[in-house]
């Protein structure tokens, strides 16, 4: 008995939801900082564990920064649908008459703005710590800008599947990390190629292809996952 959404109300709903989620996130500013601090701490552990040799750090920098980005994303993913699931808002979204895919996409976008974008913005600092050659810094930032949205998109499927579990977080990392493998490979390959002075545009092209594919498919899968979890 839900009313048919009026024309133009899809984008309105999308923007309203995005605005609401960002507002909620900025009201809880300390929680917002946890993944960012986590990222900084994880990256700073590597020089401590491996030694401060600038050559070695520069060599492993792309991998370390990217793995830290994966970990920080998975840490923050649980918040994607959790509070809406617990207070019943998610069920209201489902019966609202708007496609769940659109709602999932809005939440994914807000998740990326809150959790993914800070990683991209912080990456120059991380690159400095890890002694990444300055000529590959631009590529590093580009791979993170193209790659972290994919992490949020693919991660949303995992969150949708585990949302009904009380301890979904541990399982989530097991579900999501194998799916992140190609992105990690391609992104670090791009940065390493740039460090070695080799062409890297083909890797960026692959990341763009991955981003387009996951934007197209992941919200549908996330919506299907949420429907299964709420059934």
């Amino acid at each position, binding site marked *: 008995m839900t009313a048919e959404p009026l024309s133009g109300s899809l984008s309105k709903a999308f923007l309203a939801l995005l605005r609401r989620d960002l507002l909620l996130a900025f009201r809880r500013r300390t929680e917002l900082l946890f993944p960012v601090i986590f990222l900084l701490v994880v990256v700073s552990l590597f020089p401590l564990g491996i030694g401060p040799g600038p050559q070695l750090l520069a060599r492993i920098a792309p991998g370390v920064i990217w793995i830290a980005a994966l970990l920080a994303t998975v840490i923050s993913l649980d918040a994607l649908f959790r509070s809406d699931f617990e207070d019943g808002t998610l069920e209201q979204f489902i019966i609202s008459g708007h496609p769940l895919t659109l709602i999932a996409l809005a939440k994914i976008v807000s998740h990326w703005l809150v959790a993914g974008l800070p990683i991209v913005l912080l990456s120059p600092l991380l690159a400095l710590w890890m002694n990444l050659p300055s000529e590959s810094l631009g590529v590093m930032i580009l791979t993170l800008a193209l790659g972290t949205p994919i992490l949020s998109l693919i991660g949303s*499927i995992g969150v949708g*599947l585990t949302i009904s*579990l009380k301890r979904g977080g541990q399982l989530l990392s097991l579900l999501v990390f194998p*799916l992140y493998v190609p992105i990690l490979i391609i992104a670090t390959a791009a940065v390493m190629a740039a460090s070695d002075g080799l062409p890297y545009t083909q890797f960026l092209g692959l990341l763009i292809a991955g981003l387009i594919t996951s934007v197209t498919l992941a919200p549908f899968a996330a919506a299907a996952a949420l429907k299964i979890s709420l059934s």
Partner: protein
Amino acid sequence: MNSNTATKAKPRKHPVVLFIHKLGSPPWFYDFAGKFIPWLWLIFGVLTVLGLYLGLVKAPEDYLQGQSVRIIYLHVPAAWMSMMIYSSMAVMGFIALVWRIRIVEILAMASAPIGAAFTIVTLTAGSLWGRPTWGTYWVWDARLTSELVLLFLYLGVIGLYNSIDEPRKAARAACLLAIVGAVNLPIIHYSVKWWNTLHQGSSISLMGGSSIDSSMLYPLLIMAVATKFYYGANLLTRARIKLLEQDKRKAWVREILKEKN
């Protein structure tokens, strides 16, 4: 037109369609699978004995790899199965999600542990082969890595299936995960081409001529067919047990139990 309404009211199903519909019924499936399972095990046993005899005794040793080449009669069929079972699980998962057939859900989920086992066999046999051939148990090359990722995908599906209490919801969630993972399978496959590696290129292809002698090819192919029968037999056995478990309060299971007692 009107004279036909009597016959149209009860459209007769094609025998094949009828057969597929019948398979969706748990008691029917249970009986049908029960009749097939002994034969599948038997064929698997005969083929395995034959394949292993040809492979381990008859086939010549490799001039470079020596006796250790015989590991491929286990390793390669297991590797093929690990990928085939994942695809079949994803296809069944798709069917289960679209048409909501419970038997298919059970079959898809019963595939996961078998596939994971084949993946572990592949990795173990591969590293045992790698020690004398490459001088190391483990190399981070594309195929080994993608096989390891495949194992993680399997473990994710099994983990998700076992964490959700309600069996049908668990199966549907894990089926969706299997489909999402299947999107990764081609990427895993092409990672072989992206990475230049230590691993030898494939020496068997359906299209071109194989660069492997027929005395070594036949045991390999026989083992490949044998593992298919193993999958079928193990899958149906697991599905039957799962059906009994899920339907333990239903009348048809009680009848079977009465007959057994």
